[in-house]
């Protein structure tokens, strides 16, 4: 019993808020051994991040409070350690990959500096640290790793930032790695590489990995055991296969049933003129060409899913289309009018019709506004949508639709979990009743059951109101279920475009094929078979 690497016993965490105490984590217990991978599955907002933050001593206390429990690392209770001893544990023995890479990277230092700092705290000399940082950047498949070292966090794509976080955590060669949704922003090929890297390190150093994820595929790929959380409590635990094959708890059953990728594929049937036609859009960042002439068309009620390599320009495309960034070439006609040369007045009218859910939900929510203010702001700006008397009611309704409760209205963004924030962002986009929503990894942080609920909601809206979607995602089963068309991007270019059926059943380009092949299956057995097949292929070469 005592030789577990990590053992959490009876842990409870409360948060103080004006409206009362939130019991974020309640009496949870689990353990993790050396060389083992434990996955924490669970509902969004169920306390996964909070419980792991408690291990790292990263909960702000107050307003947070650990009301009970012990956290034993090699038998020593972390909660009873002095601040000094605790700091020695952080980084050296336990490392963490945070859920929200953008806000967790210091915006004013280059990522190379931040990497080196991690290594130097670990007692490594500067030159060695530089070399090691470079090596790790290569390992997480960052393009042009040398140049990347000198770049600042805001110059990366979402997935690239996530890989920086991963590299930084791994740099410390910890005994215990806590990975909070480490692959939410990664396309499946990169995800596979990163997971392989984890496995490899685990083999080398006997590192224990605590992985928090909602992606059943990831669980079946890497985890040995799994615990399931719901509403702050641990509701189920067991080996991956047992839990998948034979879930006990109602929530677990619901979760497994909700795994996407099993339904029918959409047959595009929209008629009429296209509302958006994009031609040859280009964008440069300095000398780097992030978009090399992207073109596509979109009709009302249609969904184009954009999948592709991390850093291939998906978010850039979205930002350019919304005029958050000035394009360096091309046209985008919205109902015939060119978006790029539009006057500010026209643009204002248009804003109502075009909405976006950002990839980094935390940063896109004003920290000084309550949820109510955040969502109702849409109506302050466009008062014609809804009379003021109905705001409260409608906010409650929207929150309910995205799986949050109306009581959350008075809370501020920092009081939510990653997935909850993402849902607030979705609710905000929906409040405007737009005609096109650009969803940049909009459901990536949601557990599959909530994800399914949100997707149903979006699908309903699409049918009912003819909303079109540009759906940027890396989760192929989800894309398969939701999209009409799929656009595959690589290195700023569209490499393949077709209906879902065309792309999924009959991929043309090698990159698309690789992408589909790398997709993970929630079934541990299927996934094990896939893995073996892959290994066999690799060894043949």
């Amino acid at each position, binding site marked *: 019993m005592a030789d577990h690497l990590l053992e959490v016993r009876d842990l409870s965490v409360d948060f103080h808020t004006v409206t009362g105490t939130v019991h974020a984590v309640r009496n949870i217990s689990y353990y993790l051994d050396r060389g083992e991978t434990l996955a924490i599955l669970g509902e969004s907002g169920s306390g996964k991040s909070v419980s792991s933050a408690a291990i*790292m*001593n*990263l909960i*702000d206390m107050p307003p947070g409070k650990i009301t009970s429990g012990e956290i034993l690392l090699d038998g020593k209770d972390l909660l009873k350690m002095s601040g000094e001893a605790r*700091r*020695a*544990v*952080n*980084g*050296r023995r336990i*490392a*963490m990959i*945070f859920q*929200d890479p953008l*806000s*967790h*990277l*210091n*915006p*004013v*230092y*280059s990522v190379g500096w931040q990497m080196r*700092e*991690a290594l130097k*705290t*670990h007692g490594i000399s500067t030159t060695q640290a530089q070399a090691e940082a470079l090596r790790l950047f290569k390992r997480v498949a960052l393009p042009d790793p040398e140049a990347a070292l000198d770049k*600042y966090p*805001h110059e990366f794509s979402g997935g690239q930032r996530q890989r920086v976080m991963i590299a*930084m955590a791994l740099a*410390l060669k910890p005994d215990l790695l806590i990975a909070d949704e480490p692959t939410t922003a990664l396309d499946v090929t990169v995800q596979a590489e990163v997971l392989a890297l984890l496995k490899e390190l685990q083999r080398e150093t006997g590192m224990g990995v605590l992985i928090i994820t909602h992606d059943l595929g990831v669980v079946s790929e890497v985890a040995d055991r799994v615990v399931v959380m719901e509403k702050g409590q641990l509701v189920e635990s067991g080996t991956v296969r047992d839990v998948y094959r034979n879930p006990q708890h109602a929530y677990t059953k619901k979760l497994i049933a909700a795994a996407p990728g099993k339904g029918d594929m959409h047959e595009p049937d929209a008629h009429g003129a296209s509302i958006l036609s994009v031609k040859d859009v280009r964008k440069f960042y300095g000398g780097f060409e992030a978009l090399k002439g992207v073109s596509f068309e979109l009709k009302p009620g249609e969904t184009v899913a954009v999948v592709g390599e991390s850093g291939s320009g998906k978010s850039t495309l979205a930002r350019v289309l919304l005029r958050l960034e000035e394009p360096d070439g091309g046209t985008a006609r919205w109902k015939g009018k060119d978006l790029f040369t539009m006057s500010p007045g026209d643009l204002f009218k248009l804003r109502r019709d075009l909405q976006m859910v950002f990839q980094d939900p*935390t940063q896109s929510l004003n920290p000084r506004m309550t949820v109510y203010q955040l969502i109702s702001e849409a109506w302050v700006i466009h008062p014609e949508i809804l009379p003021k008397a109905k705001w409260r009611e409608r906010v409650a309704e929207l929150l309910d639709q995205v799986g949050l409760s109306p009581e959350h209205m008075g809370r501020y963004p920092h009081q939510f979990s990653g997935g909850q924030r993402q849902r607030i962002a979705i609710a905000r986009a929906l409040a405007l009743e737009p005609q096109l929503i650009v969803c940049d990894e909009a459901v990536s942080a949601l557990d599959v059951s909530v994800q399914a609920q949100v997707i149903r909601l979006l699908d309903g809206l699409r049918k009912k109101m003819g909303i079109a979607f540009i759906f940027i995602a890396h989760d192929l089963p989800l894309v398969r279920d939701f999209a009409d068309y799929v656009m595959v991007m690589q290195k700023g270019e569209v490499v393949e475009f077709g209906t879902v059926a065309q792309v999924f059943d009959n991929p043309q380009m090698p990159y698309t094929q690789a992408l589909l092949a790398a997709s993970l299956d929630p079934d541990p057995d299927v996934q094990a078979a896939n893995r073996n097949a892959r290994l066999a292929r690799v060894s043949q070469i």
Partner: protein
Amino acid sequence: MLTFVRKRAFASLISLVGLLVMVFFLSRLTGDPASLFLPVEASAEMKAEFRALHGLDQPLLVQFGQYVGNVVTGDLGESLRKARPALDVVLEAFTWTLWLAVITMTLVTIAAIVVGSLAAFRTGGFFDRFSSMVSLIGASVPDFWLAIVAIVVFAIQLSWLPTSGTGTLSHWILPICVLFVRPFGIIVQVVRGSMISALSSAYVKTARAKGVKSGPIIFIHALRNAMLPVITVIGDQAASLLNGAVIVETIFGFPGVGKLMIDSILQRDFNVVLAAILVTAFAIFLMNLVIDLAYALLDPRIRY
């Protein structure tokens, strides 16, 4: 960056000219230097002669034309009272002020950042309360109080330091200490406020997760993010030292440009006023340019 500096230098030049024009005309609206230079009993003819001698009897525009003509050739005119080139007078005084400002601001910056950051680190703690109290009192104490009390205590009672004047290094100590107090108080508060927000950011958590010690977390991770308003206020305080350390210069007999400027304004020695403003403005413009470049250096998201 270079084009930015070039554009900026050009714009600054224009505003320098604007400043000059403004001061030239406005200052001449404030009365006649002749009656200040000459004793009250002097006859009207003598006053007229004085004006003629210094060209003050000409129409304002003509005077301005001449002045501009001279300025272009680098001649800022003679002091009306001192029979010396105004620029010499000003540069002599400005050197003193510049040193005083540079030394004081260096000390202030270091001390205020350290104190303010530590106060923010334990918001509401004893050190925070104490340092806030001290710095706020510092920011609201009349400076002549401090100056006189310092002289009474350190020069008269204890005889550790000279009362006033220049010459040795020890002459600098009291003026610097007195000048130190107010900017220190102000900057501590700004640092503290700015640091409270910075220290609650997510990236600070990352640093803690990496096992970084409190020192570097405060002074490396949070501080740089909190620096924008801080350097702005440092610049403002430095500017007010550059053209306004009047009281301290007066009491300590420090021959700086603040006192010079006051005296010249009160005596309507226009050429010296203009030269002094030109010199200090140049320094302040330069400082603001440096500060603007520092913004971009401190925060890579700001680009010019």
